[in-house]
């Protein structure tokens, strides 16, 4: 007889969502979190996209700590001296409230409390070392030498999957599996944010950046999201490019981003209040561990469920949905947990956007993390814009001629531009 029906490792969005669903289904659930309180170990931008949480907490937006709703979304290329952006402001987007800007420190604590309210047993400040496997079946978890038993375990430990690694259930991570995220939270008065980012006090600005100005092969994206009275500024940098470069400190990429003229003026007079770093799954299908086994299921970042195409970075919604689907799988197989019954988790993921997105966008990282997207594109766009707006009292050229000159001056052939552009459009 096990001590718990289910043990959930990690009270991030994946784990807490799973625990709520399980507790609602009448299960005896232990939710274990190493941070005390939950959220104190976690790092995100963060925009939570979509409304998945309503499946377990029906009117969640009423009580959740939401900083602002995205009403202005930008995607921008930064070159050394320029910014080329697509800016989308929309009243429909405002009404749909699709993007909720959150601070994980507050949000995770709130969500874990919801799990507790639903009847899960929440213990914090406890670090699980590994799964306990007996005769090929997971029978519980090990914590500082003690074994806690359960019929099933949901692994929701996030992007640095020590439990899976320690249990021999996935190889160590490599440069291609993850990118390095670095983030700063900067204090700015609410009214300054409203004015500077042209939003009202409910509305928010969220922007992704391609850092085309970085030299020596370094590839990194950037983001800036407005909270109520702070701004989240961060980068997500490729580890294999950092390694190939061999002479740039990761924290200096963050430093260069915040010093960029078009970022600097956005955070002017801001007071830095926190520095943070965390891994971001980037490898897609190729990096995924086995998602289930006899007695366990893997969810969220631990399963490498994230999506990024340079325009958005999403992982929290994938975590929530995979957590709920893992819980459903266990609920449907109460009393008959086995590798075979739990395999239905994968079917559920395939029928949802979680795995379908990963399949649809398989290989997208070859586009988002390419020199074409991150270096050539911004430079060409910059040349085109400059030729169009730098009025020198000369006869004007057609856009195609301008583009062609820009392509050439950036050392590229027109045919290369077309084939790279086509590949990019197809993958995105």
């Amino acid at each position: 007889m096990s001590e718990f029906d289910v043990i959930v490792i990690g009270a991030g969005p994946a784990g807490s969502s799973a625990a709520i669903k399980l507790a609602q289904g009448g299960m005896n659930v232990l939710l274990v979190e190493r941070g005390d309180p939950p959220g104190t170990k976690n790092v995100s931008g963060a925009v939570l996209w979509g409304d998945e949480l309503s499946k377990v907490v029906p009117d969640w937006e009423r009580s959740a700590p939401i900083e602002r709703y995205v009403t202005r979304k930008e995607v921008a290329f930064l070159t050394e001296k320029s910014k080329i952006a697509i800016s989308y402001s929309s009243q429909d987007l405002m009404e749909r409230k699709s993007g909720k800007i959150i601070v994980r420190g507050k949000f995770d604590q709130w969500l874990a409390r919801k799990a507790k309210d639903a009847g899960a047993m929440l213990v914090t400040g406890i670090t699980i070392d590994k799964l306990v496997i007996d005769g090929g079946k997971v029978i519980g978890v090990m914590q500082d030498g003690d074994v806690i038993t359960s019929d099933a375990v949901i692994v929701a430990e996030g992007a640095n999957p020590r439990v899976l690694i320690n249990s021999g259930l996935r190889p160590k991570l490599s440069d291609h599996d993850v990118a390095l995220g670095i983030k700063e939270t900067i204090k700015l008065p609410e009214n300054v944010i409203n004015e500077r980012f042209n939003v009202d006090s409910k509305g928010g600005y969220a922007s992704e950046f391609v850092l085309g100005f970085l030299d020596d092969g370094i590839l990194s994206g950037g983001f800036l999201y407005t909270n109520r009275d702070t701004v989240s500024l961060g980068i997500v940098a490729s580890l294999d490019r950092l390694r190939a470069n061999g002479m740039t400190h990761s924290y200096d990429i963050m430093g260069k981003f915040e010093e960029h003229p078009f970022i600097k003026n956005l955070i002017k007079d801001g007071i830095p209040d926190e520095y943070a770093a965390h891994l971001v799954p980037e490898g897609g299908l190729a990096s995924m561990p086995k998602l289930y086994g006899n007695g366990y299921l893997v969810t969220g970042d631990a399963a490498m469920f994230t999506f990024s195409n340079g325009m958005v970075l999403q992982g929290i919604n994938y975590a929530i949905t995979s957590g709920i689907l893992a819980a459903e799988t266990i609920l449907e197989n109460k009393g008959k947990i086995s590798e075979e019954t739990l395999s239905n988790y994968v079917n559920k993921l395939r029928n949802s956007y979680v795995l379908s997105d990963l399949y649809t966008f398989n290989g997208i990282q070859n586009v988002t993390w390419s020199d074409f997207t991150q270096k050539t594109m911004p430079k060409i766009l910059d040349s085109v814009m400059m030729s169009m707006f730098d009025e020198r009292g000369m006869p004007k050229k057609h856009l195609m001629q301008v583009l062609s000159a820009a392509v050439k001056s950036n050392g590229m052939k027109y045919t290369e531009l077309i084939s790279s552009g086509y590949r990019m459009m197809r993958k995105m």
Partner: protein
Amino acid sequence: MKIEEKLSLLNYKTDRSYAHITIDPDICATCPDHFCVFACPANCYTLINGKLNFKYEDCVECGTCDIACSHGSVKWTLPKGDNGVIYKYG
């Protein structure tokens, strides 16, 4: 703002009796790339007169150095219990 100043914004509960990450100085002594020094976002790995110096106290538990070191020197575990970095915002 310097990295040292940024790190000073952070709160930690430091476990003085247990270093959750350790390195093997013999391996580091012959390391050709010292990639840990460049990869660690918290400046825990530094070169002092050519010798690798590692301090776990500023670690934010990201896991990067375990990937960065391709020479088998880093032994990586999570801090015990609730020790380590305590983010306010995260």
